[in-house]
């Protein structure tokens, strides 16, 4: 479904991504694991069309999207959950959910979002930035489900969340997967990654240095944790 070939990205003269290639098949959940500064967020931003300086090719369903603006990429089925959760101070929770443009075949109706995320229903009148970290993460994910995105790009949704919310995010990702949505996920928590994802890419210094399946992640967990510096 998603195919990235030789993607490089720069910040001025500094190269943040170096010829990254990866594939995600429809219905898969794939994680990108790597240290801070490895280029994980830049990779997602580049796929979304938010990074100004890139070379290489990003294709969706076999068609390149490199020349498309971010809003046009959403129409091809991309949904983006940014690492800062992307809250608006001037929008209420409900407005956050009404804002995105429905683009995919199955945009979630508002009622379904509120059923799945009762916390958000309780706080529908609050400003997005006033929610707790976990609630903000729920809202950021719910927002792209409202669009009916077919491929979610989630930038570290569990970062800084309590174990309770991490577990909840895991449930939601599994539920989303069952609904046929594909997910590309950044994750530092390898233990969590192995419970939700099908396979993993290890990113270091802007390159893909390893591909792992869940068994490899479990058997090499200590080595990986050591490597990630956690």
């Amino acid at each position, binding site marked *: 479904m998603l195919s990235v070939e030789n993607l490089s990205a720069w910040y001025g003269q500094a190269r943040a991504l170096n010829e990254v290639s990866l594939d995600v098949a429809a219905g898969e959940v794939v994680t990108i694991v790597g240290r801070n500064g490895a280029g994980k967020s830049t990779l997602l931003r580049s796929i979304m069309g*938010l990074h100004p300086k890139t070379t290489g090719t990003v294709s969706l369903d076999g068609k390149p999207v490199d020349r498309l603006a971010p*809003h046009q990429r*959403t129409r091809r089925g991309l949904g983006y959950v940014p690492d800062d959760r992307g809250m608006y*101070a*001037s*929008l209420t929770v409900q*407005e956050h959910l009404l804002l995105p443009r429905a683009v995919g075949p199955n945009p979630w109706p508002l009622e379904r979002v509120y059923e799945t995320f009762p916390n958000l229903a309780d706080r529908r009148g609050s400003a997005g930035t006033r929610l707790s970290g976990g609630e903000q993460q729920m809202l950021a994910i719910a927002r792209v489900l409202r669009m009916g995105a077919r491929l979610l790009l989630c930038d570290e949704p569990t970062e800084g969340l309590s174990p309770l919310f991490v577990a909840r995010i895991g449930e939601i990702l599994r539920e989303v997967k069952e609904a046929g949505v594909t997910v590309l996920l950044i994750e530092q928590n390898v233990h969590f990654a192995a419970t939700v994802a099908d396979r993993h890419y290890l990113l270091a210094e802007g390159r893909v240095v390893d591909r792992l399946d869940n068994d490899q992640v479990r058997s090499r967990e200590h080595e990986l944790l050591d490597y990630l510096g956690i």
Partner: protein
Amino acid sequence: MQHIFNGLVSGSFLAMLALGLAVIFGMLGVVNFAHGAFYMLGAFGAYLLLTEWGVNYWVALAAVPVALGLFGALVERVLIRRLSALDPLYNFLLTFGLALLLQDLVRREYGVQSQPYTSPLTATVDFGLFTYPAYQVMVLGISLVVCLAVWLVLSKTRLGVIVRAATERPELTRALGIDVGRYVAPMFGFGVALAGFAGVLAAPMRAVNPLMGGDLIITVFAVVVIGGLGSIFGSVTAGFAIGLITALANLYVPTLSQTIVFILMAAVLLWRPAGLFGREEAFT
């Protein structure tokens, strides 16, 4: 009482101009220095329509803002958009240059003396304790309605949600499927149209001359800063408040009436750098 009314009427103009400026700044991040020139063009437009073609005030009140709004949208498309990727300073210089250009083009044709414009309403309204010109009462009413309408659209409609989102985080809003670029020219045009509308309203009661906008706009900038850059509600509230305060200062401490706005601005900046209703995020 009459002075309070005077203050609120001048506040009406400040509020409408500040509102347009706030909408433009919020959406484009552009401090539109040509805003005063557009206000002046509004007043001159009404004057020209009347003297050259005999078009009456009420038609001008509708037609001039529409024409100026289209002109504004064109300016955004042709000029401002080209500079949007650069430092905001470039658009600051562009709009400043545009203001001087428009001002001098009008000056070349009509000189600097004020042109007369007869008021369409000459009656006065009797409030019991005092009487007040009907036209001024109408100006106050219209501007309140306009400000309220803009606020309702921004706070209650989907268009308002999009505009607020695009104002706060344009990139993210694009990633949510919204073509932000499509809204930019219309919003700039709308801000300019508001300035033109205020200009037409001002024609019968203010001196219509090429410098009328430049004189007023400095105060409007102070109003926007006091209200909080980019805050719609803040700009309008501050507009009326400053109008009122200036009128009262004029009555009790006439020497201060010209400077009190700037004293207030300095005080507000020291106390709350983001303005009374501004958000700190506006600076990031």
